[in-house]
């Protein structure tokens, strides 16, 4: 056995390599580059991500590497595509905002984003507890920093939840800092908890390798404890209730284009991690984890839909709606688990999960970008996003149909997609998930989910209402900046095109999980 055996098959890490090298390259370029035109770094990032995305199609990334700790399969590749696409759109749509927040430091933002993406892409193929945790943290840590990205502003008097917390007028307050801190605190606790659970798994199974664990682990109370901690820890990442508390606050506090990224890519990664573990070494112990997932689904659906109802801040509303959406993702997992449990086979459940994540990515990023486009038009040049306290309430959309018909139409399309209305991509995602769930035998859950999803239109339609039914007053016309506009256009086209002809994409998702 040669020392280099571990490098066998390392070519399947090509995409991860591109991202890693890109991240380091950006770091170097950032240092070398004069302060004036750091925006070029953004375009470089776009190029890199596009390159990586293309590579997932052109290169054969299937196989095993790192001595079995890393496996490239259809699922992992598909996940990578979602991450890279999310990164791509995140950069594209956020370019202006990033440049505005820190014109001289925008390179850091792109580096952090690339680092986080590296964590995600590695996570998608991890078959080893160590690699799983390392890549998980690699993904998480930059996000904490990015969430807190932004300037310090002064705000009008704000009411706090308690009298002692009320801020006097004109207090300096760093909204992104609060967003980052909350994400961090909940995230850190959760990841340590998950880590503890993983350490227990290691103890039970005696190995860090999934394939070994799958053979050696025995069910028991310790395992139940471990699984609960792992599920809980990762549920934080996907923002499933009751581990969702950071979601609305971070969404509201952080800069909108970042939230667009945060709301989709890490969640997809969280699902990837859950799938690796629960349908990998724990595939034989579905009785242990499926009740937990079921509980998370129900709580998420109820809490997310209920809490979204009274929100006036669009980003908060989307945060809660995202909690509910994650219920759908978990349903796909549940369906996949059931089939794995009963027949030991890969199932459509995973394919539905992939398709759902992609659909969610497209529509959710689209909404956030529309918010950003509208809010950005209300800002003056020297204002940064976090300084204006109210630029993302429902009121900013007033009369958008007249101020920018195109944006309004795109926004309508995205919220309808999120609401699961036909001929938008989100509809197919939800229906396919429900289809899988029914096959798995959770008919009652299908009815509950479908009904709550329809009821969820109440708050999605609030956005439509604000855009189409309220007079614009003296609000100015809106024009999205070029990059942002392009991102919105692309996402809208995707929503429409896949919504009209979902067949090929769904087929691809099936192929990715080894069906069809």
């Amino acid at each position: 056995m040669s020392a280099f055996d571990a490098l066998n098959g390392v070519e399947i890490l090509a995409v991860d390599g591109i991202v890693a090298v890109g991240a380091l390259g950006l770091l170097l370029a950032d240092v070398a580059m004069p302060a004036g035109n750091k925006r070029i770094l953004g375009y470089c990032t776009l190029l890199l991500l596009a390159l990586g995305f293309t590579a997932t199609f052109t290169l054969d990334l299937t196989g095993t590497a790192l001595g079995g700790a890393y496996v490239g399969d259809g699922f992992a590749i598909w996940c990578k595509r979602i991450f890279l696409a999310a990164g791509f759109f995140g950069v594209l749509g956020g370019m202006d905002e990033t440049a505005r927040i820190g014109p001289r430091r925008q390179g850091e933002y792109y580096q952090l984003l690339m680092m986080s993406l590296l964590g995600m892409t590695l996570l998608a193929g991890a078959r080893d507890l160590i690699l799983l945790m390392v890549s998980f943290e690699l993904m998480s840590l930059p996000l904490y920093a990015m969430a807190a990205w932004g300037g310090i502003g002064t705000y009008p008097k704000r009411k706090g939840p308690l009298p002692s917390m009320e801020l006097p007028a004109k207090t300096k307050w760093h909204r992104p800092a609060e967003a980052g801190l909350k994400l961090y605190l909940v995230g850190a606790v959760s990841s340590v908890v998950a880590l503890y659970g993983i350490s227990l798994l290691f103890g039970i199974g005696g190995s860090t390798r999934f394939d070994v664990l799958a053979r050696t682990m025995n069910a028991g109370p310790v395992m139940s404890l471990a699984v609960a901690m792992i599920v809980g820890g990762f549920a934080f990442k996907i923002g499933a209730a009751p581990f969702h508390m950071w979601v609305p606050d971070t969404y509201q506090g952080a800069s909108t284009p970042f939230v667009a990224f945060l709301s989709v890519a890490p969640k997809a990664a969280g699902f990837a991690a859950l799938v690796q573990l629960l349908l990998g070494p724990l595939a034989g112990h579905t009785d242990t984890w499926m009740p937990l997932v079921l509980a998370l689904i129900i709580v998420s659906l109820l809490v997310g839909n209920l809490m979204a109802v009274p929100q006036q801040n669009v980003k908060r509303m989307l945060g809660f709606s995202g909690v509910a959406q994650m219920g759908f993702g978990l349903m796909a997992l549940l369906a996949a688990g059931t089939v794995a449990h009963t027949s030991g086979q890969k199932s459509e459940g995973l394919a539905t999960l992939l398709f759902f994540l992609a659909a969610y990515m497209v529509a959710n990023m689209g909404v956030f970008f529309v918010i950003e486009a509208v809010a950005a038009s209300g800002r003056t040049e020297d204002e940064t996003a976090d300084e204006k306290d109210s630029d993302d309430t429902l009121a900013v959309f007033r009369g958008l149909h007249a101020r920018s018909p195109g944006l309004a139409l795109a926004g309508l399309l995205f919220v309808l997609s999120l609401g699961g209305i036909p001929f938008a991509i989100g509809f197919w995602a939800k229906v396919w998930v429900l289809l899988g769930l029914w096959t798995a035998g959770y008919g009652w859950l299908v009815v509950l989910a479908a009904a709550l999803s329809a009821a969820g239109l109440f708050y999605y339609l609030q956005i439509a209402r604000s855009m189409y039914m309220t007079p614009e007053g003296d609000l100015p016309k809106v024009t999205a900046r070029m990059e942002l506009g392009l991102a919105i256009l692309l996402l809208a086209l995707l929503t429409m095109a896949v919504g009209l002809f979902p067949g090929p994409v769904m087929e691809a998702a099936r192929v990715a999980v080894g069906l069809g």
Partner: protein
Amino acid sequence: MTGLLSPANAAALAELPLLHIVVAAPFVAAMLLLFINDTKPLAVRLIGVAGSTVSLIASVAIALAYDMTAGGIQMTSSLPLVPSLGISLELGVDGWGVSLLLLTGLIMFAGAFASWTVKTRGREFYLMLLVLVTGVFGVFVSLDLFVFFLFYEIAVLPMYLLIGIWGSSNKVADAGPFKFIWKLLDVGGKEYAAMKLTLMLLIGSALIVAAMIAMYIEAGSTSFDLRHLEKTHFSLGLQMWAFPALWIGFGTLAGIWPFHTWSPDGHASAPTAVSMLHAGVLMKLGAFGVMRIGMVLLPEGAREWAWLVGGVAAINILYGAFAAMAQKDLKYIIAYSSVSHMGVVMLGAATLTVNGWNGAVYQMFAHGLMTGLFFALVGLIYEQAHSRWIPDFGGFAKKQPFIAAFFTLGCLSSLGLPGLAGFVAEWLVFLGAWQSAFSWWAIVGLLGAWITAIYVLRATRRIFWGPAPDPKWTDIRDPIGTEWVALWLLGLALVVFGAVPGLVMDFIDLTTAETLPRVAGQALEVLR
């Protein structure tokens, strides 16, 4: 409409992609509108009219091309959408579809003209309207359950914006002890109405999704094709819950009691053409869904639950009629009368007899024409009087003799006067009800028709008859210009299809005769 074309010509006509045209025309028109400047209202209207005209012509052509001797589903075409799930854009039309396409074409054509006077944001209005009608046409020609559902949702959703933007708020009853609720929800407001309508219908469709998925899986998870599903014999267990699920899901749109409450507020708030389309056509989608999907695919379920379907329909008939009688807002009267008349449709469906089914489908057709006419008239009155409050009216026939005449015509069809389309439908439904296992339904239906006579004619008298109108109504007048189109078209259609019901009934009867035996089973043999 049989025999108007020679078989050769009809066959040649059937070769054209008529079904695609009928669905695509409004959609293409809607897409065209995206590129039209809102400052050119005439161009917008003309495109709207053009889209609906093409659909109307195509639907007439479909009726002409349909081969009566062959029957069954014709003009089929297929375009796979999601091969792995067996979802494909299967189009085809049967006799029911032909008649309802014709109805939709007529109503939409009339509606395009009735929307002539939409003052603000006409482009978006026509766009939404055309998208909505695309969905309606789509439902009637879909042979794939999933695509059926897709179009169904498309037809339902634009209502939210159409009512919310162009609607009007209503004066509703005093809040009484519910002031805290009324205030929070803004009961009577157009946005309230729009939201209530949307949520109730979509939550209903959650049940449809569940039943649809269950049927798909039990049929082997290979295809949503209705013809495939029809061949499947679903287990009794599934039928016993899936049928009521479909009934409530689709029935919410058909206004079944007690899930009808979106209807009065929604119809009263909606702008003219939207009310016309919604009450005239969309509510029929619900009933069509119950019959075409629920009953045809789940025959045992339909048989087992017929008592409930018909019982609730009987409640609908009386309840809607009585509620209409107590209304003072003209649109609420029409809206509640729709609840009552849709009860007739559901009653006919529940009888599971040839006559009942023929009557049910014909009632969809007749009620569509009638209620379309009504809402067009109410729109005209409202536009001129800026009020729908009947106690303020009186003597309008002096200034609006033609509106009065057409309104009376609508009323007469509504109360089931022979010679008008409404009678044929009601008569067949009641006859079917009498033949069914629950004869008392027929008596309820007859009583409902009588109560209808009371409230519609009372309203007519209060609005149009009596001494010269109050001086404040100086501006009211008879229709002018394009306003005539809806009135003459729908009014004449009521008479023609009432006097010569065979024009449409031949189509309906063909499909009924083909599909009923599998639903009614032995019952059919006994009855005729």
